[in-house]
């Protein structure tokens, strides 16, 4: 059986991560940023699962499940905050939320 080489998975994960990173650095909308963060997290999950299959152990997969749970929790909290912000500002533009600076 010809398996897909590990490098391909890692390359895909790196690509996903870079897309997510680009999104965070360029977009101003909170929703988009959260989506980008999810993208970066999932690229890491992909790495974990790929390594898990490569080394023939289950550690990575277990780790990935925890990571997904964490991402869900993070998304829940994040969207709750954005809901609150939306009620106050009628938009979720993180650039304008700068009252805590100097």
């Amino acid at each position: 059986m010809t398996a897909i080489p590990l490098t391909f998975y890692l390359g895909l994960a790196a690509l996903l991560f870079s897309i997510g990173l680009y999104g965070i650095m360029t977009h101003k909308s909170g929703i988009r940023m959260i989506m980008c963060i999810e993208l970066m997290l999932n690229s890491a999950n992909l790495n974990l699962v790929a390594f898990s299959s490569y080394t023939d152990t289950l550690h990575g997969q277990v780790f990935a499940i925890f990571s997904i749970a964490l991402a869900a929790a993070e998304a829940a909290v994040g969207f709750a905050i954005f809901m609150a912000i939306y009620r106050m500002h009628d938009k979720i533009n993180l650039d304008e939320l700068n009252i805590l600076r100097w």
Partner: protein
Amino acid sequence: MVKTALEEFAFLIPLLPALAFAITFFFGRKMPSGGAIVPILAIAASFVISFMITLGLLANPEEVVNQSYSWFAVLNIGILIDPLAAVMLSMVSFVSLLIHIYAVSYMSHDPGRARYFAETALFTAAMLSLILSDNILQLFVSWELVGLCSYLLIGFWFEKPSAAAAAKKAFLTTRIGDVMFLTGIIVLTSDLLKVAGGFQEGVYLLRFDEIFSYIPQLSALQLNVFGFEISHLTIITLLFFGGAVGKSGQFPLHVWLPDAMEGPTTVSALIHAATMVTAGVYLVARTFPMFIAAPDSLMVVAYFGGFTALFAGTMGIVMNDLKRVLAFSTISQLGYMMLGLGLGTAIGLEAVGISLFHLINHAFFKALLFLCAGSVIHAVGTQDMRELGGVGKVMPITAATMTIAALALAGFGIPGTSIGTSGFMSKDPIIEAAYLFGEHSSNWIPYIFSIAAALLTSIYIFRLIFMTFTGKPRSNYHGHESPAIMTIPLSILALFALVFGAFTRTGFMNFLEETFANSFVNLDIGNLAGIGRNELVEAGGHEPLIVLWLPLIVALAGLAIAFVIYYLRAVKLGALASMKNPVYRLLYNRYYQHQIYTEFFSIGVVYGVIAFLTQVVDVIVDSIVEGIGIITVGVGEELRKIQTGVVQTYATAVIAGVSLLIILIKLIMEVL
């Protein structure tokens, strides 16, 4: 075998009084008469041990008691009981014992007597430890401890402002000397390290035998001051002498001692007459080989001692306070002891003998004088001699013992025989040595000082006797003889003041000469004197008859003067002893030294300098401190602009940082 067994207990000599201090301090208030019994028993035991060891040493002076325990790798605590330490130990524990017994009655009405007995026990422990220490550092620690006890006991009645001020004055004045002493120790240590080539484990450089063995090398170290080559040994010994000047109340640091009389009279007797103030003399005697090997040091000691003897005597004549007269007398007698040591420049090791002999005898008769004064004060309730008079009728034992002490102080005895009071036996050798010195070097100043001081001594002490005990009462007082527990110590001391000198004279001198030649140190004093460029003369004995008789003649003259003025009242005192007489005013105000030291030096110079320095410090330090503040605020102003509040900026910074880190790690891995 008995002797070796006793040596095992030598460490108990200071330890027992120290334990007594702890017990009395914590439980004394619950015990009868302030727990006095504990220190009395402890000091009695110390005295017995000291005395037995002294007897053992008398039989065999070569074998000194020496025990050493490691403290740090290069410092030790140790016990050294050689003839010098042995006589001091016996005297201190004996006098302290008698004074403690006396104080049971003297302090019986005082609510703070438990504290009193605890502090005197601590003092005795510290003093004994000072005497038997075998290294200079342990001596210094004990030296500071006795200073502390002195401070506590002068300020015993601290609710009296004058007592609190006197305690502070004593503490600060002696501190000047102590700082000099400590500086001397530091210089000595650094020099020893130089000549011995650094520390070695198990070699205790500050032990006296080590110090003495390096004297030639220390003497060779020279320091150039304004073109004069000064031996390091001279500097070290002069700094040590500075410490002795403070502790032993020598001019110009004697100002604290008269004020120290604010404490209980027993404290004056114990600390400020018999024991602590002699620590300075003991220090010079202990390091005598260093002094004699240092050019000029002993001359300084002799001049200061001689001058102090005379200077304090002049002030003693005009004081009206019973205890003040005795305080100036103590200063004057300490001057004699210092003079005796200083004359070692001519008579060598014999100087230690005559000086220590005077120290021991003085301890007996001066403690007696103070205790008698205390007896009078206790019974009559005043210490102003102008209000006394006729006390001899109501207090015959006190009057008799005090007269004996006065005779001893003035030095009455028949020259050329062994009939005489203790003071005669020990003061005359010092005056004769001063004569020898004068004859040898044609420098008569020490001799003139000592003879003049002898005349003054006789005048002031008999003035005190006549004013206190004879004539009619000059105020309304109700006196009564003191109880037996007070008069018995007086009688014992009076016995010692009368006959101790006559019995022990030659034996004592010979014993003391063994101090620097035994199993601990073995020094050739003549050789060391050569290093110090001191020419020793052969012992006297061929002085003209007038020299032998002159001290007695001036003592009799002093007695006659006091008798005429204060007993017969043949001279109108009003004109002489009034503030209109400038000499009287000068003496009565103690040469205005208090004013000079306090108002001119302390307030004018020290405070002035401090005020000036404060302003300088304000300008310099403030500008530094404020500058730092301004810089910090300015940098903060700029740096806070980094905090944009935009999430993306932060995220970018984090990512840039992490990337940089990874690249760095990668690079380092490549290199390694």
